[in-house]
């Protein structure tokens, strides 16, 4: 469910006056929109020297807000929306992507990347690894990966499968199986980015990356996949603030209330199940509190957990930052130029 956070009079997040609460994430949406629009014009035109932008629209809140901001900044005729479904995409993704593109009056294309993913071996490699965990896994089965043990224990992953008859089973994944499933599914984000750059090159446009601050900070992206872009307009905004901007920009209510999902696996999978461990509104506050050096006690009261649990949330944020540092790094040179 979307947050109740709304736009306020302040442009930047405020320091807490008393106890920490969700109001620290209030932003002045009109001012924020103006700021991002001005920067987009400058970056696309002057820094990147491109004539517009490509935005891959998933039907989720982040890409929808990026498309709306780009249309407002550059003009809708300078934005190409791409809808790139594959075999495991929810039917809702394409429907909602169309809804956003048509709502904004954007030129858009729907390109099914399923056949290309088949040809490159995405599903075959993935299913082969899944059969090592569940030998019966095959056609008609659905699956997802969920995070486990994040609070207090060491993080590991479970494979959840549903048979054609509807029976659900789960099993801890070994290292090799987990790495192979993730590597195979990463084809999806990387192939999408290949298509985004094809259209960007064809039109002399730039490619938009759509992470919010939580995703960017915590490395929730595929290197050279959705992590690759020329400009990332909302990487400084907490997810809660992205929802506020969506309402300010007048995006359809169905978009503004959508639950964040990965839309990568065939079973429905929330982002909190796969990566973050806490719902986004609590993760936002935890990240904000850590960035502002607040104690675990202060965070605990704000998100309704014990101080020990809040301390573990801090530890998890720091751990993910360390583990995903390499995702942000450019290729390393062994000698200075």
């Amino acid at each position: 469910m979307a947050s109740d956070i709304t736009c306020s009079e302040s442009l930047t997040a405020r320091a807490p006056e008393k106890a920490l609460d969700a109001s620290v994430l209030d932003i002045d949406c009109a001012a924020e929109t103006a700021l991002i629009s001005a920067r987009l014009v400058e970056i696309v035109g002057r820094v990147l020297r491109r004539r517009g932008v490509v935005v891959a629209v998933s039907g989720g809140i982040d890409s929808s807000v990026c498309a709306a901001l780009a249309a407002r900044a550059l003009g809708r005729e300078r934005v190409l929306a791409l809808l790139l479904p594959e075999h495991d995409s929810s039917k809702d993704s394409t429907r909602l992507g169309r809804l956003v593109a048509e709502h904004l009056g954007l030129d858009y294309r729907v390109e099914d990347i399923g056949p290309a993913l088949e040809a490159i071996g995405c599903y075959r490699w993935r299913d082969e690894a899944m059969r090592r965990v569940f030998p019966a896994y095959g056609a008609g089965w659905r699956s997802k990966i969920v995070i486990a043990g994040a609070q207090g224990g060491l993080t590991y992953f479970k494979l959840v499968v549903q048979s054609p008859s509807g029976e659900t089973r789960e099993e801890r994944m070994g290292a090799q199986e987990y790495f192979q499933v993730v590597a195979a599914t990463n084809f999806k984000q990387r192939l999408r980015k290949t298509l985004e750059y094809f259209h960007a090159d064809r039109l002399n446009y730039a490619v938009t990356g759509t992470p919010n601050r939580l995703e960017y900070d915590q490395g929730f992206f595929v290197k050279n996949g959705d992590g690759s872009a020329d400009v990332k307009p909302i990487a400084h905004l907490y997810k809660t603030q992205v929802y506020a901007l969506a309402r300010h920009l007048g995006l359809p209510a169905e978009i503004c209330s959508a639950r964040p999902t990965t839309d990568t696996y065939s079973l429905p999978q929330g982002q909190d199940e796969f990566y973050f461990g806490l719902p986004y509104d609590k993760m936002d506050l935890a990240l904000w509190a850590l960035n502002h050096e607040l104690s675990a006690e202060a965070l605990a009261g704000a998100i309704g957990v014990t101080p020990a649990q809040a301390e573990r949330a801090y530890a998890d944020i720091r751990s993910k930052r360390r583990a995903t540092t390499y995702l942000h790094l450019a290729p390393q040179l062994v000698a200075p130029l």
Partner: protein
Amino acid sequence: MEAIKPQIAQEAIKAQVRQYISANFLMGANVAELRDDDSFMGQNVIDSAGVLELIAYLEQIYGIEVDEDEMIPDNLDSLNGIGHYLQRKLNSARA
């Protein structure tokens, strides 16, 4: 058959795991400075993906299955922790 002395078994386990960490995570670099009670994650020796590899290694080499409730830092985030954990695990398997 005579029981293995606990202290000797733990030292052997720690030496073997230390060698694995050097070879697998540090490309053969010397890990002499890694103390037995150092946190692997705290020292940036192993990250969360590395933990999965470490568990797979322990399961394969020692013929055990690490249970979900055993996946805690006390058991797996230091050489001492692994030494204690494996010895308990192996002893309970023999019993």
